[in-house]
């Protein structure tokens, strides 16, 4: 029974995401290969916002009260939308089918192996599961109770995953530690589908298949989704933000601007590092508005919405005195030492992704080496220089932020590099992929520079 209820929760998340996607970017709702990954990401965001609203209105969390509105909304919308939007062919050829088959196989493995291994540690427990349990027990966003937790936990961690985990816990009951794992496998599925889409939307089929297989077989990705970390979900938000920013450049519509804001908000509310992704989204919207590529009436709601959601959680953190674990307390007094550590962190981060030893080879394979070489090639080509520069710049912003964060926590400096680096560098994979893909384009493909 618990498993069925958890299935219902995930179906509702998918439905909520589909409804939101249909409202923002209906063109993506017509192909399942584009709709499913976006719905898998937007669904948890919609559910988290719904739970924040319910808490503000003092409506206790419950499965019926949180799930039913989405099914009612779907019943109203579905008939109208079915008439308006004819489905388009989703799978474009044998190569695309092969890549999607690998995605399904890897996601199935992540699902089954995740279900066999309960959530006991990692992000999913320390940073979100413990807080989610408070929300489940108190049936609200009870931040006073969170602040009173005895176990040292990351109470200021953004709330998207804790809220969604709380919903799963309400459905799963005593089996919560096992039945929460599909949430992470679904995030991995979203990320892999977006990677395949990024390749096949930009390259001829055979080259796209090569790029997609290289990315999907990145060892750290192939083994992901089972351990209960939030990095796959966060990386999927980064990729969705990047893809939407690219689409917005070509066709600046109000819906796409809002979808970009939603992607930025999703990243902001998933991990603390999401602040940089949110800032990149804000920056892109500002650039498009300043260049008059985006109408103020189209861009302003997205910009204001993203800023409002970005400010909401820090305000709540300050109001309730929530905090990070003491081991993450930053040491900012010695500026020179901080600069030195940041430079060292940058060097170690870049060295960690190259296949220089067995551990690094079995973490990244050839993905970063091939990606950096292809990105260099794309930089040489005039047709792709501007695009690749833009993606590399965005990646550099995120890498710089990551290195500074690691450097600011001196006690755990070595630990951070031994255990956290592969997961943090995963966040940069979307930027690397988008910077490298233009090198595989046909020579005669000319695209406008961003």
């Amino acid at each position, binding site marked *: 029974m618990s498993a069925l209820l958890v299935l219902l929760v995930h179906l509702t998340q998918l439905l909520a995401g589909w409804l939101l996607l249909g409202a923002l970017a209906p063109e993506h709702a017509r192909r399942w290969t584009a709709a499913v990954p976006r719905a898998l990401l937007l669904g948890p965001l919609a559910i988290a916002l719904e739970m924040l609203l319910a808490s503000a209105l003092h409506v206790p969390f419950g499965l019926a009260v949180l799930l039913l509105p989405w099914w009612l909304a779907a019943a109203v919308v579905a008939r109208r939308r079915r008439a308006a939007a004819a489905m388009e062919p989703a799978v474009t050829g044998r190569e695309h089918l092969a890549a999607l088959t690998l995605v399904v196989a890897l996601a199935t493995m992540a699902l089954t192996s*995740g279900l066999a*291994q309960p959530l*006991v540690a990692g992000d999913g427990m320390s940073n979100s599961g413990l807080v989610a349990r*408070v929300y489940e027990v108190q049936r609200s966003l009870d931040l006073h109770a969170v602040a009173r937790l005895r*176990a040292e936990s990351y109470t200021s961690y953004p709330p998207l995953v804790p809220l969604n985990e709380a919903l799963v816990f309400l459905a799963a009951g005593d089996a919560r530690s096992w039945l929460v794992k599909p949430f992470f496998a679904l995030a991995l599925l979203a990320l892999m589908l977006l990677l395949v889409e990024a390749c096949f939307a930009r390259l001829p089929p055979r080259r796209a298949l090569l790029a997609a297989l*290289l990315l999907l*077989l990145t060892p750290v990705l*192939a083994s992901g989704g089972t351990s209960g970390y939030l990095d796959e979900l966060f990386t999927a938000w980064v990729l969705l933000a990047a893809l939407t920013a690219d689409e917005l450049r070509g066709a600046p519509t109000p819906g796409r601007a809002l979808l970009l804001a939603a992607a930025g908000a999703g990243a902001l509310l998933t991990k603390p590092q999401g602040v940089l992704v949110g800032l990149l989204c804000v920056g892109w919207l500002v650039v498009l508005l300043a260049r008059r590529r985006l109408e103020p009436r189209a861009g302003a709601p997205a910009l204001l919405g993203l800023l409002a959601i970005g400010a909401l959680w820090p305000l709540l953190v300050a109001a309730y005195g929530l905090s990070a674990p003491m081991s993450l307390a930053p040491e900012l007094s010695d500026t020179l030492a901080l600069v030195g550590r940041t430079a060292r962190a940058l060097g170690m981060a870049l060295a960690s992704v190259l296949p220089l030893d067995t551990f690094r080879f079995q973490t990244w394979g050839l993905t970063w080496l091939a990606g950096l070489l292809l990105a260099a090639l794309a930089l040489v080509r005039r047709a792709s220089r501007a695009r690749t520069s833009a993606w590399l710049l965005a990646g550099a912003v995120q890498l710089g932020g990551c290195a500074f964060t690691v450097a600011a926590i001196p*006690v755990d400096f070595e630990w951070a590099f031994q255990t956290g680096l592969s997961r943090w560098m995963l966040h940069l994979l979307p930027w690397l992929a988008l910077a490298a893909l233009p090198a595989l384009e046909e020579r005669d493909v000319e695209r406008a520079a961003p």
Partner: protein
Amino acid sequence: MTRSRVATACAAVLLAVQLVAAWPALEAGLVRARGVHHDLEHPDPQGLAGQPTFAALLDMPPLLAGVPDDARVLLVAGPVLPFAWDFYVMPRPLDVLVSAPDVLVARALRKLEVPEVLERWLAYLDTQGLLLTPDRLADALARDDVLIAFAIDADDLGLPPGVTARLQRVDSHGLATLYRIAPR
């Protein structure tokens, strides 16, 4: 044509090397998919058995099943890695005390690469009132209804004389033992 063949061969080699790199991760995933060995006596392929985080998941819920939701719980943890204490005890009110014997701490500080982490952790426990001391134990025993000793023997709790008689052993499961605290 030749150029195309060379490109195809390069792509095949690239993918083969990538598959070699990914194979251990894929194999580990397949092993996990076959299931976790819930056996705390023998190591399992996932490396979970014997870890306090995993033991807590297995041992705490069966013990707490018969404890009312409004009972105050005192959890005394032995010198093991911390786990999400509240996760398993909620919604019951919880007090936690962590044992850190001086001998073990001194040995750990000598062995650790970054001893500051342990020093800061112990300082944190002390400022939060979570470090096991006879006074804190006596205070907690006076206000709580049940005691869970996790990865620690009753003899190592440092119970004051006369208090031992108030503890009634109810059950034990793996690393955890449940005691009912009789009122004074």
